[in-house]
């Protein structure tokens, strides 16, 4: 059974169609790149899966169920914004995650925080935006979830941290879990992706494995993306 399934999924905002009759199935054990230019519907799709938006038409299923508190328990969501309370210390945020998520591995989170030299008693408000993003990613990846939704996880961090994040995603790989990564930085994530979904104006322009793209088209995902979403003719 797919861990994420979209059937005829449509979302409109005040008459503007963000997602247009999407059919998609993601199986467990896959790392999927959700790729597309700005406004293509990537964040909308992720928000629908996280239950932050309601579909206008069609349905989205997580592990066979509509988004609900029950699906939130098996879904680890990393928003593109800093969603943590700024007044909290890192340890308090860890307590918070321990309290609400049964699958949260505190020891793993503490080990990753130590690797990135983030002090546990530091208040979030005192951190740089990049450090907050790292904390948020560590929290999301320290859960033993069935589905990880990572919205722009490497957008605001330096290239060295980018490598660390990709390593973290790979090292937390679980054959029963799927990871969906939404990003513009295709060249950086391509190495860890199993398959890609190209979104264009709310529709799926391509859904294929990275291997097939490389073998059949003789191009990297990054090259293909640049061709598909070319902004001007030379």
């Amino acid at each position, binding site marked *: 059974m797919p861990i994420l399934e979209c059937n005829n999924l449509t979302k409109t905002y005040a008459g503007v169609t963000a997602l247009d009759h999407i059919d998609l199935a993601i199986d467990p054990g896959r790392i999927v790149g959700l790729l597309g230019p700005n406004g293509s519907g990537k964040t909308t799709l992720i928000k629908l899966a996280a239950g932050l*938006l309601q579909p206008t038409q069609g349905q989205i299923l997580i592990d066979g169920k509509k988004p609900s*508190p029950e699906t939130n328990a098996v879904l680890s969501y990393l928003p593109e914004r800093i969603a943590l*309370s700024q007044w909290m210390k890192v340890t308090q945020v860890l307590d918070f995650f321990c309290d609400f998520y049964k699958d949260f591995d505190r020891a793993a989170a503490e080990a990753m925080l130590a690797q990135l030299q983030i002090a546990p008693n530091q208040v979030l408000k005192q951190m740089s935006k990049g450090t907050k993003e790292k904390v948020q990613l560590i929290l999301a990846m320290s859960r033993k979830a069935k589905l990880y939704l990572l919205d722009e996880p490497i957008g605001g961090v330096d290239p060295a941290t980018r490598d660390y994040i990709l390593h973290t995603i790979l090292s937390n790989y679980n054959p029963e879990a799927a990871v969906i990564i939404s990003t513009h930085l295709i060249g950086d994530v391509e190495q860890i992706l199993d398959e890609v979904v190209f979104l264009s104006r709310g529709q799926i322009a391509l859904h294929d494995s990275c291997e097939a793209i490389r073998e059949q088209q003789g191009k990297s995902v990054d090259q293909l993306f640049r061709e598909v979403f070319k902004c001007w003719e030379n």
Partner: protein
Amino acid sequence: MLGKLMKYELRATGRMMLPLFLLTLLLGVFTRMSTAVVQHTHTNITESLNMLLIFAFVLALVGTAVFSVVLMVVRFRNNLMTDEGYLMFTLPVSVHQLLWAKLLVSMLWFVAVFCVDALAILLAIYEDGMLAGLPEFIRSAFENMDRYYAVNGLLYMLEFLGVLLVSMVTACLLFYAPISIGNSFATHKTLLSVVFYFVIQTVLQIVTVFGFAFSARTVNDVIMPSLASSPTRAAHLLFLSVLGYSLIIGTILYVLTWFMLRKRLNLQ
């Protein structure tokens, strides 16, 4: 999960409310001390200081109450309608639990403000032996109510408490509902929240006026006659009417808020 949500809600709000409570109580003690000093030494400095302290104390009493209301509104908006909402609405908890955690903790602070302000006033005006007669006064008050008015004093207290609790929940929802509606729009979220606050207030006033007009006959036929023959029955009816009214308004606002957060959530 409701308990855990309330724990974090208390932690987030307590870090602001508790220092205010401490300040209010300290000002109560200082006011009492300065009044004692003024009673013994009449100098311009001590009197001016005393006046200043009394002013600061009254400001703290009112400020604590006002702040608890402001905090109730701001906390709802910031924790659920801004970036923090991305975490709160993806927790494995229902929207009902999110709402009740906010409502119950806000009620708790309202009650705490009443208790702390009462205690602070008591500290500020304390005289030796002032409280000696208090237990006797409460006992005789209940006894007299039972004897002279043939009513159960405890029942009155329970009805009053019911009205108080339901009114507090409804008061919170009077802010929660417009904020949740205003934030369902793509832009001008704060402005629209204010607009919907006034829209809801206006609708409520119109409904209340019509409600009074329609119930005038009931008041004339049932409450007024019983007011003359049995004031206690009239008082019970009044309490229950207010309770019923608050309950209906509160339920409508709760369902509206829940619907907007569950079905029309639109975080930026």
